[in-house]
């Protein structure tokens, strides 16, 4: 019996090639999109899951309340980790790291720059990085040892055994390699190439071990399974607040399973993060698959008159409805199965492209039991959904009526089909509007006035040698004639590394508890970064300019200063004079308002050189000169640089990714809709072929005929627009709420996308109906 179903299904597929190709390509594109999205989602869900005890690992975080603004921070006091371990038996292990920094590793003639973390002893007890060689425990117990990842070890030593080799770090200290761990997987929240233990006998660590005020490190703990985390949160807060000055901070544990997807905090409460995109794209995957299924339903029922006769015959031959249902379901299952095979092929072909687009290393493992399970589900669900309506509809035919030949689908029969088409149109309007809005938002933010000029600005990491030779380097750079200004800063222009309480000034309100970002810079700060000075002047190279600072507009505003230039600010144990006010410089999120900032003049050490190229200078040409100069005065370090505008664009990684993904999947979804519409129009026209012929004989013009056919679809588009505009507005409005700096939704967005859908519909309908409208009526009427 089943064999007979397969046979007839196969012959139907083969005989109606246009129909089958339309159906199969829709389903294949739908399934391919779904699989790609699910691969991405699976990758996102699997972050950090490679640690065997991931469900017991937590990061200690803290909510600090300043003047009613709650700040959620990962930086906690350095001694906290050990105290937690000592005081709470639930805490199995606790460890600390310093967020990491780039270090220079040197072995013989090989010099490489890698990312290293300074970590405390139990680092590899909390996490479980897989040790390939040596002992991690021993390495972390000895401050002169270093742990390298396998690829780092290979870069330094080639195929030689890395254990026991001595490497020079940052050109001043030697460390012995005593363990090698596997490379950190790409889907790990923590990334490093080398681990260095904190040196307990160093002055820095000695001082930090009793410092409960300044926080430069983050703390991770592993709990005994089944620990009551809420209770422990309270205990941690009590313990940490009792140390040092009295405070009222709220400490809490953030579980590892949430690090990747739930990383956003607002007013001290977790507000999600990447998870919203994971959910969004899961929904998009389902919608795309649904659109493909709707196509299948539409086209199958449109063809129903042809199948009606078969249903009638089968019923008179003794078939029960159940058996017909089974037959039509098996047909849709076959479609679903073939589409699945095609889409697996498509995924294999497209994955490299997709990976480079989203910057990931996804791969499809078809032997993975989970994949096989999901694949079966995908096939069965698609087959069932796509086949449901045709199966129920077709099997319900009354044999007496269909065989008499008087069977007419009637007006009502096409209503479900119209509902489905309206649904597709609505989704199309939603997708087009979203794509446009995401693009608008990104462009809006990219075009935001940054308060400085990130173009033609080069950032070069500094070092002890370079700082010593800073004056010479600056002079030689200027002498090349390619550089207009040089400065040095304590942190990059595209980030804030230091938040600090505001300085004191005369007339400061008693209860003012203000937090500002702080940065130190050499002379010519404003000139180099291109910051607009609203008032006062830049740092200058005069002997008198020593204890001076700049404020930004926002700082002046929250400090409520009337005449800031020349004011004295007490910060730490030094007094600074305010010499200039810069415009607001966007350093962190381009979506958020600018934070109050102060820039302190610092002429000695610094982390970065900033080099402003003259207008019209080719960066490549300038770079070769700059490199020569840095090689000369900073020979121990490999020359490294980045363009500030590129650094800034890094801030759009997520939004760019979302933009690309929505473009891609919205485009494909709309394409599937078009396929379905095209198929449906073809059937409508086939059905009305005779009518068109008669009308032509009666004198209808081609234009009138085109209008006649498109009228039907016109109403559907208008209805879809009415339904989808409020829904679309609501969804997009909610999405924009997440950004403080954002575009507004205008009526033109909807007008544009509705017009787009309408235009697309008309083009498709006209292309399909032109043939019928142009046909000689003699042929269409004779065929009766």
């Amino acid at each position: 019996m089943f064999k007979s179903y397969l046979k007839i299904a196969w012959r139907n597929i083969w005989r109606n090639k246009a129909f089958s190709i339309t159906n199969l390509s829709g389903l294949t594109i739908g399934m391919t999109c779904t699989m790609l999205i699910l691969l991405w989602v699976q990758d996102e869900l699997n972050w950090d899951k490679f640690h065997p005890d991931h469900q017991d690992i937590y990061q200690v975080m803290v909510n600090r309340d300043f003047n009613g603004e709650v700040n959620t921070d990962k930086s906690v006091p350095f001694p906290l980790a050990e105290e937690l371990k000592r005081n709470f038996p639930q805490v199995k292990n606790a460890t600390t790291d310093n967020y990491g920094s780039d270090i220079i590793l040197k072995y013989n003639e090989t010099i490489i720059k890698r990312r290293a973390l300074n970590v405390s002893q139990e680092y590899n007890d909390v996490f479980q990085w897989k040790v390939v060689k040596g002992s991690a425990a021993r390495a972390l117990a000895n401050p002169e040892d270093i742990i390298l990842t396998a690829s780092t070890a290979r870069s330094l030593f080639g195929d030689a055994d890395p254990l026991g080799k001595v490497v020079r770090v940052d050109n001043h200290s030697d460390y012995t390699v005593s363990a090698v761990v596997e490379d950190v997987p790409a889907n790990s929240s923590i990334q490093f190439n080398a681990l260095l233990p904190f040196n307990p006998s160093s002055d820095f660590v000695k001082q930090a071990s009793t410092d409960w005020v300044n926080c430069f490190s983050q703390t991770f703990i592993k709990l005994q399974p089944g620990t009551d985390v809420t209770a422990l949160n309270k205990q941690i807060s009590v313990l940490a607040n009792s140390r040092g000055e009295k405070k009222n901070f709220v400490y809490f544990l953030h579980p590892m399973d949430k690090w990747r997807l739930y990383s956003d905090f607002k007013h001290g409460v977790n507000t999600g993060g990447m998870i919203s995109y994971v959910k969004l794209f899961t929904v998009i995957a389902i919608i795309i698959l649904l659109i493909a299924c709707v196509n299948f339903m539409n086209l199958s029922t449109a063809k129903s008159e042809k199948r009606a006769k078969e249903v009638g015959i089968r019923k008179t031959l003794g078939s029960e409805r159940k058996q017909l249902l089974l037959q039509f379901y098996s047909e849709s299952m076959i479609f679903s199965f073939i589409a699945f095979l095609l889409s697996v092929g498509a995924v294999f072909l497209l994955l490299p492209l997709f990976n480079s687009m989203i910057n990931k290393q996804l791969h499809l493992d078809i032997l993975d039991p989970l994949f096989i399970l999901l694949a079966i589900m995908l096939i069965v669900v698609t087959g069932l959904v796509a086949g449901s309506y045709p199966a129920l509809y077709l099997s319900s035919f009354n044999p007496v009526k269909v065989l008499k030949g008087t069977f007419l689908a009637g007006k009502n029969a096409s209503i479900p089909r119209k509902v489905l088409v309206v649904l597709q149109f609505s989704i199309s309007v939603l997708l087009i509007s979203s794509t446009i809005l995401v693009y608008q938002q990104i462009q809006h933010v990219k075009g935001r006035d940054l308060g400085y000029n990130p173009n033609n600005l080069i950032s070069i990491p500094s070092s002890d040698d370079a700082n010593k030779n800073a004056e010479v380097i600056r002079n030689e750079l200027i002498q090349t004639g390619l550089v207009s200004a040089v400065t040095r800063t304590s942190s990059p222009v595209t980030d804030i590394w230091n938040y600090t309480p505001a300085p004191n000034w005369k007339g400061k309100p008693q209860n003012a508890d203000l937090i500002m970002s702080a940065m130190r810079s050499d002379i010519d700060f404003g000139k180099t970064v291109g910051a607009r000075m609203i008032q006062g002047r830049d740092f200058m190279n005069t002997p008198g300019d020593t204890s001076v600072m700049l404020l930004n507009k926002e700082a002046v505003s929250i400090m409520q200063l009337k005449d800031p230039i020349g004011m004295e600010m007490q910060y730490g144990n030094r007094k600074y004079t305010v010499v200039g006010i810069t415009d607001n410089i966007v350093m962190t999120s381009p979506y958020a308002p600018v934070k109050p900032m102060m820039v302190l003049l610092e002429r000695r050490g610094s982390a970065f050189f900033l080099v402003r190229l003259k207008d019209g200078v080719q960066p490549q040409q300038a770079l070769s000169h700059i490199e020569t100069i840095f090689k000369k005065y900073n020979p121990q370090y490999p020359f490294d640089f980045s363009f500030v505008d590129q650094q800034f664009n890094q801030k759009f990684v997520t939004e760019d990714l979302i933009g690309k993904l929505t473009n891609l999947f919205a485009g494909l979804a709309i394409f599937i809709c078009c396929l379905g519409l095209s198929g449906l129009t073809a059937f409508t026209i086939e059905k009305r072929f005779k009518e068109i012929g008669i009308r032509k004989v009666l004198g209808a013009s081609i234009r009138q005929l085109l209008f006649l056919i498109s009228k039907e679809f016109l109403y559907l588009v208008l209805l879809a627009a009415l339904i989808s505009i409020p829904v679309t507005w609501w969804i997009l409005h909610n999405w924009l709420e997440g950004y403080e700096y954002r575009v507004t939704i205008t009526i033109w967005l909807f007008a544009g996308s509705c017009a787009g859908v309408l235009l697309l519909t008309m083009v498709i309908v006209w292309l399909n109906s032109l043939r019928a409208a142009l046909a000689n009526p003699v042929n269409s009427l004779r065929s009766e």
Partner: protein
Amino acid sequence: MIQLQHISKWYNVGGKPTFILKDINIKITEGEFVSIMGPSGSGKTTLLNIIGMLDLPSEGSYQFFDQAVYDLREKHRTELYKKNIGFIFQAYHLIDELTVYENIETPLLYQDVKSSERKAMVSDMLDKFNIVGKKDLFPSQLSGGQQQLVGIVRALIAKPKLLLADEPTGNLNSKQGEEIMDLFQKINEEEGVTIVQVTHSEKNADYGHRIINLLDGRVESISEKPLKQV
């Protein structure tokens, strides 16, 4: 074998019932060959469909082999129908996507006949009706007469006790029609299959033992015929 009592069927058109069949009482015994005649719209096909259990009357009772058909559940009725009744249509109604062989096999599929048995039965029939050479062709590759022959073979494959034919020769030329009618007679006489046919043609009706004349949904007359001499 068949006993119809007070069978009526009507539709409501504008609140008033329009009768298609009105108080039909017919008895058909096993082995009979009955023709139903009447002008267009007299209810011939509806009556045939009711006998064939494809359609239900608005009123009346139907005994099939001492079973009250309308007291049976849907499932049992289908069972009764599948086992005993074969249908033949004016427009042949073969499934276009299936070959001759597969078309003939289909009723057996719905009766859960085993594969080997099916093969034997179909081959037997193909032999008997001399269409072995056509078994792999599709309906569109056959002439009308050949298609109707396949339709008849398909109706007979499950060894039904009752064969219902709705204008079986309506789409055929006279020579083909005659061949089909001769075949009907042969089946009736040799296999003892009861046949009820609806026809327009006096000539074809004459093949039957009895002719039931319908007019406006009523039995106008029943004429008994002596067995036709071959």
